[in-house]
């Protein structure tokens, strides 16, 4: 006797689509991988060379290959500077640059200049990109805001950003604030532009579907709109970071008593090409490092928001 009595209806599961027709059971290979919940490894592309395939699979190998070109450049640089093609003033040897770095580091100047530049970039980037996101979201989501403020912001954007420098100096002075402000201006526009444009172009059908299931307001923003624009936001942040460094150097070249831009002008003034090259190398390394940090954020956000990877 069944205990399942009473006026209950039974849905016959045999009518649901049988397992054999389900995609997991299509082929033995995919079937076993999916069925056991193993992570799927993308199938290697057959037509490419086997070395390239190995590189795609091995992160360390790819990293090592990425270093090949810098090493080559270093060798070339060393040769050109030591065989008399260029004079030491034109192109000091890599070892000289390294020595200059060590000397500055021992005096403490190096860390001080790096630290002050990093601080300006970080502050300016955070302020600028946050404002860019907030205003971009406002303009992208609200048609009223777009109509009222869109053209004005567009016009401000059309001003070549360095044109603000004299005004900023007049208003804010030559100190930290004017530099951070300039960096913030540089970081603002890439974020603002990408966020507002991306939000305007979120698939209307998706939004409608979500709204039909009662998802509105902030929930709609965080569950649908934000994940949909996340790839654009990240690329906007990447651009903003590059702009932030650009504007930092501009601000420091135009008037600073410390920072990497100051190191550049000072070294130019007293003919220290080794320090000049050192500052350029440091900017390259710092730029790459900060970009890698955005990459970390990108992966975290993809997990947190479940965003689709940028296509």
């Amino acid at each position, binding site marked *: 006797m069944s205990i399942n009595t009473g006026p209950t209806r039974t*849905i016959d599961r045999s009518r*649901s689509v049988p397992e054999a027709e389900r*995609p997991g059971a299509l082929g033995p290979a995919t079937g076993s991988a999916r069925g056991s919940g193993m992570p799927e490894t993308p199938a290697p592309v057959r037509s490419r060379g086997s070395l390239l395939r190995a590189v795609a699979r091995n992160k360390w190998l790819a990293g090592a290959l990425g270093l090949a070109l810098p090493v080559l450049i270093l060798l070339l640089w060393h040769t050109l500077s030591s065989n008399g093609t260029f004079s030491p003033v034109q192109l000091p040897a890599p070892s000289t640059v390294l020595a200059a770095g060590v000397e500055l580091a021992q005096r403490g100047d190096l860390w001080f200049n790096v630290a002050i530049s990093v601080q300006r970039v970080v502050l300016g980037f955070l302020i600028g990109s946050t404002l860019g996101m907030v205003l971009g979201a406002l303009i992208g989501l609200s048609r009223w805001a777009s109509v009222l403020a869109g053209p004005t912001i567009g016009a401000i954007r059309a001003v070549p950003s360095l044109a603000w420098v004299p005004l900023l100096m007049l208003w804010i002075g030559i100190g930290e604030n004017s530099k951070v402000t300039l960096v913030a201006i540089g970081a603002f526009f890439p974020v603002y532009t990408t966020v507002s444009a991306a939000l305007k172009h979120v698939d209307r059908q998706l939004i409608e579907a979500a709204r039909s299931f009662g998802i509105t307001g902030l929930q709609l923003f965080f569950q649908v709109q934000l994940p949909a624009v996340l790839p654009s936001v990240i690329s906007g942040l990447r651009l903003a970071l590059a702009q932030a460094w650009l504007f930092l150097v501009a601000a420091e070249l135009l008037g600073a008593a410390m920072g990497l831009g100051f190191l550049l002008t000072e070294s130019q003034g007293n003919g220290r090409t080794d320090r000049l090259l050192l500052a350029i190398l440091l900017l390259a390394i710092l730029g790459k490092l900060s970009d890698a940090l955005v990459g970390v954020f990108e992966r975290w956000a993809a997990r947190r928001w*479940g965003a689709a990877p940028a296509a």
Partner: protein
Amino acid sequence: MTAAPASPSLNATAGRGTRAYPVQAATVSFDGVGKSFPAARGTKRGASAPGGGLRQVLSDVSFDVEPGQIVSILGPSGCGKSTLLRAAAGLSTATAGQVRIDGSPVSGIDPRCAVGFQEPRPLPWRSVTDNVAMGLPRGTPKADGGRRVAELIDLVGLTGSAGHRPAEISGGMAQRASLARALARNPGVLLLDEPFGALDALTRLKMQDLLLDVHAADPTTVLMVTHDVEEALYLSDRVILLGSRDPAGPAGIAEDIRIRVPRPRSREDAELARLRSHLLAQLGVEGH
């Protein structure tokens, strides 16, 4: 007396057992519903176009759907079937007349409805499971919701792909996920726009039976758009045929057929075959 072993067949829990908020099947009344769209650019406007640059798609559509009935809307492509369904869902407003659910007019997206769209429209960054869970009524306890979603995914045959993203499943599978999402809502009115349109013939027949099973377990009101005459006849208590004599004019109800064949129906039923010939003739397909 022995307890029944865990049965592989879903019992009533799939239909209504896990309901946090049992929902009553609702009445849907179409009351002289008409809909016009702005005429497309490139067509003649103003003086020559009656209605000042508006193109009327639907005119004076009136019928009542009784609670718990399955009603199909048939009609040629572009005649306004989706438009009618969208008016019922509150996704767009009728330009004439009104739709009422249980007597109160629909204005704006109506929480009593769940829509299965003509395109599956999954959120691309969510797994099949999370997409189906989006349909759950607000405030469903987590455990209940999870169970219900898993059951629905099983019913539509997607258990093997529950963790996949929409880009990794086929169009037909996405459509089944979309059906499960609408069912998860446990709505007073289930609005389905060609829910089986992208399915292969065999899966399609199975999904039709599935819909009947779910409906038998939980007889909500179902308003369904289809272009498949046999599907409409096999599933519905009533078929509304939309159409117009003037091809350029708005569509209205051309035919309103009650199907009194008891369920379960045979697909070869003589009465259904007769109605099929009749409807096909109405749709302009002769000689069947």
